[in-house]
């Protein structure tokens, strides 16, 4: 098998295990490329990719852009703040205008759940979902699972805890879907106000005590607290959040085994994790960032095969 089952990457939900394995093996090849002095390959020459970011993002956009450029694609960037969106143009019109300029692949981040699926129904281009509301963030989940695979040899049978704001997190949802497809056990841990009431229907364990959660797991994925995404207060203060769900060195050292620490970035140092944890040898945060480019190259490469 050498192609994906869909012309879009809308979410992990729509991927088969074979799709994910194909993305991983393709990323293995690109990771080798990234470690060569000549980091560029001609795979996407004559393919035009538009990065549409209707929500602020620095690192995801940069990661996508680097992936696109290293595949020799032509790249255009579109940020909502400088766009016609503020003039009231609809999403479909905005994207069709861009497509009229002969764009092949759209990478889109959008604040509303379902926006990528919606767009794929109404425009004629390959859509890569770079995050839609609290729904999915498939490339993040792929790079997280890929990083676990890299560190631990395989994902199957591993115990992964996702800590933090599960209610507003597309990273959590995509990670749950991805890790479960690959055979890992998943637990979620966080304040009860930030835990969806029906989360256990997804087949995850739920734990509110961070110490217990960390004792259980092989890998802890510490989510960023995104205050900008919370329209009301779900916990009284960052100080109290840190007291309950912050990971510091003494907690890490108190565990009976060495766990791996991940974070999707950007880190609020001293909130989700302290600096000495982020910079410790148990953290694979920078490997995640590196793998992000390889994963995105793989996704774009495989989708471009469907375009031409």
């Amino acid at each position, binding site marked *: 098998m050498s192609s994906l089952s869909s012309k879009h990457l809308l979410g992990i*939900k729509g991927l088969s295990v074979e799709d994910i394995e194909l993305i991983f093996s393709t990323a293995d090849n690109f990771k080798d490329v990234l470690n060569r002095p000549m980091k560029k390959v001609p795979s996407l020459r004559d393919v035009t990719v538009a990065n549409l970011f209707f929500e602020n993002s620095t690192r995801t956009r940069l990661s996508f852009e680097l992936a696109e450029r290293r595949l020799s694609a032509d790249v255009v960037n579109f940020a909502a703040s400088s766009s016609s969106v503020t003039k009231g143009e609809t999403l479909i019109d905005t994207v069709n205008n861009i497509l009229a300029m002969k764009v092949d692949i759209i990478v889109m981040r*959008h604040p509303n759940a*379902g*926006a990528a699926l*919606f767009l794929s129904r109404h425009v004629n281009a390959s859509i890569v979902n770079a995050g839609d509301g609290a729904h999915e963030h498939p490339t993040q989940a792929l790079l997280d699972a890929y990083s676990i695979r890299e560190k631990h040899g395989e994902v199957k049978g591993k115990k992964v805890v996702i800590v933090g704001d599960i209610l507003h997190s597309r990273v959590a949802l995509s990670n749950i879907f991805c890790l479960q497809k690959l055979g890992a056990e998943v637990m979620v841990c966080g304040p009860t106000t930030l835990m*969806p009431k029906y989360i256990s229907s997804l087949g995850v364990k739920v734990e509110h005590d961070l110490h217990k959660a960390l004792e259980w797991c092989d890998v802890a994925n510490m989510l960023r607290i995104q205050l900008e995404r919370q*329209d*009301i207060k779900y916990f009284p203060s960052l100080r109290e959040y840190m007291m309950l769900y912050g990971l510091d060195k003494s907690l890490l050292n108190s565990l009976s085994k060495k766990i791996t620490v991940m974070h999707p970035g950007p880190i609020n140092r001293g909130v989700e994790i302290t600096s000495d944890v982020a910079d410790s040898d148990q953290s694979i945060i920078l490997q995640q960032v590196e793998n992000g480019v390889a994963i995105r190259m793989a996704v774009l490469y495989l989708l471009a095969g469907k375009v031409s």
Partner: protein
Amino acid sequence: MNLIIRQSKICDPQSAFHNKTCDVLVSDGIIKKISEKISDKADQEIDGKNCMLAPGFFDLHVNFREPGFEYKEDIQSGCNAAAAGGFTGVLQMPSTFPVIQSRAGVELVRNRTVALPVDLEVAGALSSDLVGKDLTEMYDMHKSGALCFTDDKKAVQDAGLMMRALLYTKNFNGLIMSFPNDRSISGKGQMNEGVVSTQLGLKGIPAIAEELMIARDLKLCEYTDSKIHFSTISTSGAVDLIRKAKAAGLKVTCDVAAHHLLLNDSCLEEFDSRFKVKPPLRTESDITALKNGLKDGTIDAICSDHSPEDIENKQKEFDHAAFGAEGLETAFSAAYTSLKDILTPEQLFEKFSSGPRKIISLPSIRIAEGEKANFTLVDLSDQWTVSESDIRSKSKNNPFIGKKLSGKVKAVVNKGLYNIS
């Protein structure tokens, strides 16, 4: 104008012809003759074979968008959709622009004449501009014909205001309608809170947002010794609360929207905004509870909650798409499809005709000689797949398009007029 409906089975327990297959002669809007065979000729004849003739349906919850949003629906197109769906009367909600909140607003709608067999009744706003702060001139509106008062889907958040509205209308036997929704809990929710919302990452509207408000209003209803009607209830807990309140002797009634009897929240798995309604589509166990509530009489009426929205307001990112479904043409068929094994035709017709009329104190309708001709002709054996061409509303946001339904309205007669669907 003379009209004969041939050989339909009359379904009206109040009528001497109940369950008999007859010809019905209508002349100048009055039933002149009911007989097994009428040999006269008429200007218009309707074949009622295999059909049932029921007292005309009444819809307690329609949003015609006139004045203000005529591009979504005006009174003419709305009444046309109502007639197609078997409704000979509708209650227009006050959520127009400007809001129907004064005698002038009520009269504007009531004086609008349409050459269709549909009576147009009006609900006035409970609070000025529906913002939930100050009472409107409900007495004046009542005198000019407003049948009840409600802030519609805005839902009165302030308990004190609801209490004063219940007390104030008692004086002139006015009726308060409450759409139960606690906004401090439902917030920016987009769909039912449950397994599906968790998978979709959409903000949930928990059942408790509805149930808390019902519990509050029932307490107020008891305290003020007034009557209250709950619009479009949707949860199992809501049915339980109202069942208990009725048993305790409170003057409470309620209705359910037809789409809540057939569709559940899994319809939203593809983020299709046609299924984005308020209250949200709930779960299969809620549907079962609603059916039981209809059977045991807890729920008095079925409405369409007709909420036409143009494509610009629906074809959007899900969070931005408007709530609401167009539904007059399909309400009866949707309800029959859901309830055919639960209610007898007679019981179902009651939920569409005498049930809603009784709530707003309209006289019930009889199919008898000398009475006004006001009835709906339905073929319960017909199965049909809804297509966009069946929709007479200006807006096409009907959630049943493409779905197969049982039972079809064939015609309505009222005000000396008839309409064939």
